[in-house]
């Protein structure tokens, strides 16, 4: 699969059931990327200890991104690999960034939680729960002024539903009729805390409606349903009616790499993992006549693509030490003085 082809598929929304194969492909790419990204550590790459997998949540990323178009912008939370991939990211550069390599999207300075690409409208992943949300209000303001109908989408988890900044941002977006969409990927857990232990207000979309946004909740099992629900709120957002969509998913694995989920029972986990949007789409494809062997070949091609991304990241070099002082300020500004240089200067006196 070539990069050009991937970018092309991240364009306008597929509209018919025959596009399920494309949605499946994108979800499988996300899953395989997430399954393989841990390989970086196995291969002795030390950077990027903060790794949050979105396995089980692929339908949210792929279903919503299928309604986005070129010119749209977005921010994500710390669990955003799938969203960026679904918007057309190059797995090689993603994998390299997660490994802290020079060839990564941010030259190794951002990593998994601060990956961004202005070319694809990615205004940044965020390591602060809710931290990336208000930026879409500002981007929405700019978009409204430009009048091209571009939408700015904030992706976040259920943890951010308990952060004040979300409500300030939704309120402003509604007040100013901004082309903005708020997407909560509710994977049921804020780190080790189940959403039932975080709030009694479980109908998340009602909170958005209280601010005057169009608010919906959709089950994340069926990616086509997610896409349809997303399309509805996206159509509103394009015409200045900001929206909110909660996608109900299940986080298959722990919060981060080292978390073995001691806070939930094995049987609950097994039950939760039955809500598997990738397998669900695969079953639907086979039911509608696609050969299993055909899908196996597709999956193997994706595995090869992600293996290649691992190889690319492992083979890439660390950023040069001199880059450490670069980009603290604008390109024509002096770089901060290194501590060692300063010490030398202070101790150089006669």
């Amino acid at each position: 699969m070539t990069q050009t082809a991937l970018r092309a598929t991240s364009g306008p929304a597929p509209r018919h059931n025959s596009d399920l194969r494309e949605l499946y492909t994108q979800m499988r790419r996300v899953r395989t990327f997430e399954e393989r990204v841990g390989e970086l550590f196995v291969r002795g790459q030390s950077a990027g200890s903060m790794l949050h997998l979105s396995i089980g949540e692929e339908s949210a990323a792929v279903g919503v991104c299928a309604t986005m178009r070129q010119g749209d912008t977005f921010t994500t939370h710390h669990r955003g690999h799938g969203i960026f991939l679904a918007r057309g990211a190059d797995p090689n550069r993603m994998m390299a960034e997660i490994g802290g390599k020079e060839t990564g999207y941010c030259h190794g300075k951002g990593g998994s939680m601060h990956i961004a690409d202005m070319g694809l409208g990615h205004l940044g992943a965020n390591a602060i729960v809710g931290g990336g949300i208000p930026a879409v209000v500002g981007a929405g303001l700019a978009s409204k002024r430009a009048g091209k109908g571009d939408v700015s989408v904030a992706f976040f988890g259920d943890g951010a539903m308990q952060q004040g900044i979300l409500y300030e941002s939704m309120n402003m977006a509604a007040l100013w009729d901004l082309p903005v969409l708020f997407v909560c990927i509710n994977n049921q857990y804020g780190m080790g805390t189940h959403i039932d232990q975080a709030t009694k207000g479980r109908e998340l979309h009602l909170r958005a409606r209280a601010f005057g946004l169009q608010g919906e909740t959709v089950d994340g099992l069926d990616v086509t349903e997610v896409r349809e629900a997303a399309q509805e709120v996206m159509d509103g957002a394009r015409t200045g009616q900001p929206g909110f969509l909660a996608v109900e998913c299940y986080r298959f694995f722990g919060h981060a790499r080292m978390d073995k989920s001691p806070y939930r029972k094995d049987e609950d986990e097994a039950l939760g993992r039955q809500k598997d949007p990738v397998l669900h789409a695969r079953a639907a494809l086979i039911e509608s006549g696609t050969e299993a062997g055909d899908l196996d070949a597709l999956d193997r091609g994706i595995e090869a693509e992600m293996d290649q991304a691992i190889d690319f990241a492992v083979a890439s070099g660390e950023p040069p030490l001199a880059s450490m002082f670069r980009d603290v300020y604008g390109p024509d500004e002096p770089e901060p003085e290194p501590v060692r240089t300063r010490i030398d200067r202070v101790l150089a006196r006669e």
Partner: protein
Amino acid sequence: MVQMTYRDALRQALRDAMTEDDRVLVIGEEVGRYGGAYGVTKGLIEEFGPDRLLDTPISEPAIVGAAVGAAMAGLKPVAELMYVDFIGMTMDQLGNQAAKIRYMFGGQIGVPMVLRTQGGTGRSAGAQHSQSLEAYVLHTPGLRLAMPATVADAYHLLRGALRQPDPVVFIEHKALYTLKEEVDLSSPVPDWGKAAIRRRGDDLVIVTYSRQVHNALKAAQDLSERGIEATVIDLRTLNPLDFDTVRTEVERVGRAMVVSEGVMTAGVAAELSARIHEECFDFLHDPVVRVAGEDIPISVSVALEAASVPTPALLRETAERLVA
């Protein structure tokens, strides 16, 4: 030459920037119809309309966060924080987002926004409306920091701030809004990032900024009558910090006093003092002395408030003892 207040100069800077560049917009609480809590934006909504002067709900984090996103999307937002005391509300958007986006994203994009706010004592406004919190900002790489002392600088530093590629926190002093000076805004001022030597003398150097520049000049006048001549350096911007000017003057004179309205401990004066000690050690006749705010909250009581921050009398006495 024209008589103008600090407040008028700020408004003129906004007006000129907004006229020149339609990407400039003001966003904040009461900036439009009300005209700003201290009247800085008064009348601008009639000139530029509500799409350029965005009145917001009372949501400081989202005001700064929206400015971040707007700047990334190509606008030039001037966000207004009514009091610098509210900066803690916004510290995630300011310190974790605005300040770090260029670096975290490998230089792909900057956040050219200005956060206008005001601080300091002088209005009996109490502990949550009177602070000098510039050290919070200075402690965060990626944020520029300007603190104008004069009417001309209120204009030029704000224009300069709007030309920066990076986020600038612009802290006005609430006691200076009514300061009136004869200015010619077309006459040259030091470049952005350069300090101004407001007075020259050979006995000591007073390094300061914002309202304390005026206190230092008052003290220097009194000192002069007693035969002590002080140099007064107005830093104008704390980031970038023009330490070259400080070093040159301190090495020439051999004595330095640093003055800040912010509290003493771990403050701007501490940073300046450390740098002078390290870099001018062989030229110093005496230790650098810090005159800063007391390590206490600010009281509403006019008497306690006034005694909480450096006064011209304290500056004069300290300088006399330093030189003696």
